[in-house]
């Protein structure tokens, strides 16, 4: 089990990048099933609360995604293991880009859908977001489809993301997962 790193590439993500990654993951693990669950509930105070929480989480994901991108531009990701085949590196880069895109576009589609359905989004019940589109039944239904399709795309890609991380850790036995979970770093040397 040998690990080779390029001289200047960092070994791990910065604590800030790690924190933001897991915060976004946590919010998605909360908001995603909530979205599926709340949708078919009969109208009740709980349903209104779930919708509000779902939207607050979504807006937070959106803001954290921007923060992550800003951080990423000044703090490059650690290099991938040299042993990784080229196609895997390309796939990893492509999927990471897609994940960033989705965590921006999914909240955006939800925000627009909400406006089109006539419900403004008010972050934590305190910060009203402007309605970028007016109330429009057809647009609302279209955006609902878009929001749903994007979310199932996210589900699939996160599945691959998690499977790849586990495969790196257990099969390749490299440090790809431990870059994001430092306590998993193998003790050696």
């Amino acid at each position, binding site marked *: 089990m040998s690990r080779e790193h390029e001289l200047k590439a960092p070994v791990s993500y910065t604590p800030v990048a790690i924190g933001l990654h897991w915060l976004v993951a946590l919010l998605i693990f909360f908001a995603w099933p909530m979205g599926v669950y709340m949708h078919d509930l009969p109208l009740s105070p709980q349903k209104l609360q779930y919708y509000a929480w779902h939207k607050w989480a979504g807006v937070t994901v959106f803001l954290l995604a921007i923060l992550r991108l800003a951080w990423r531009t000044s703090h490059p990701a650690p290099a991938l293991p040299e042993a990784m085949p080229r196609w895997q590196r390309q796939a990893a880069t492509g999927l990471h880009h897609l994940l960033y895109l989705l965590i921006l576009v999914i909240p955006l589609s939800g925000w627009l859908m909400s406006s089109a359905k006539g419900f403004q989004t*008010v972050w934590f*019940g305190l910060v009203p977001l402007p309605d970028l589109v007016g109330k429009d039944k057809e647009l609302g239904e279209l955006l609902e489809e878009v929001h749903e399709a994007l979310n199932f795309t996210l589900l699939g890609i996160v599945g691959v993301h998690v499977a790849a991380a586990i495969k790196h850790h257990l099969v390749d036995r490299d440090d790809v997962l431990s870059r994001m979970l430092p306590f998993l770093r193998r003790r050696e040397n």
Partner: protein
Amino acid sequence: MRARRLLPLALLGLALPAAAVEYGKVLPEKSQITFTSRQMGVPVSGKFGRFAAQVAFDPARPEAGKATIEIELASIDAGSAEADEEVVGKNWFQTKAFPSARFVSTSVKPLGGGRYEVRGPLTLRGHTQDVTAPFAFKTDGQLAVLDGTFVLKRLDFGVGQGAWGDTDTVANEVQVGFRFVVAPASPGGAK
């Protein structure tokens, strides 16, 4: 013909804003009754599609003004199909037992600057309470526009029973807005 007959009256109206024109014929298609509730801090607007309004108002004698408004509660547009269905049910308006809301004015007083205040009992869902609503009076050609709002506390009228009594989710205060466009009472406008 008609326009020619009305023109001098309109000019008179401009010269003497307090001319004794009694407005008394509400134009329902130009009038509206709206409301805004807050759900988890989100303002949600709606309106009532059908209501009968009798308004008599003469800016020269505001104290003599009168209004009787009857709202068909089932005609509500509460912002979404599922809300429309819910609010006519037993936890909200219970329209089977209480199909309409009714307001009858008991007094109108001038506040100055084209503003007035109407007061009277509102009956909703079997509860009757006095409400006070300031409104503005404006003329628009031959027509009068009465535009006002007031805050209604829904729980005072038992609107939102059971779990819906939780005002952290749906606020107790509902902003009610009205706009009545009223034509002169008698053809020709003057009395």
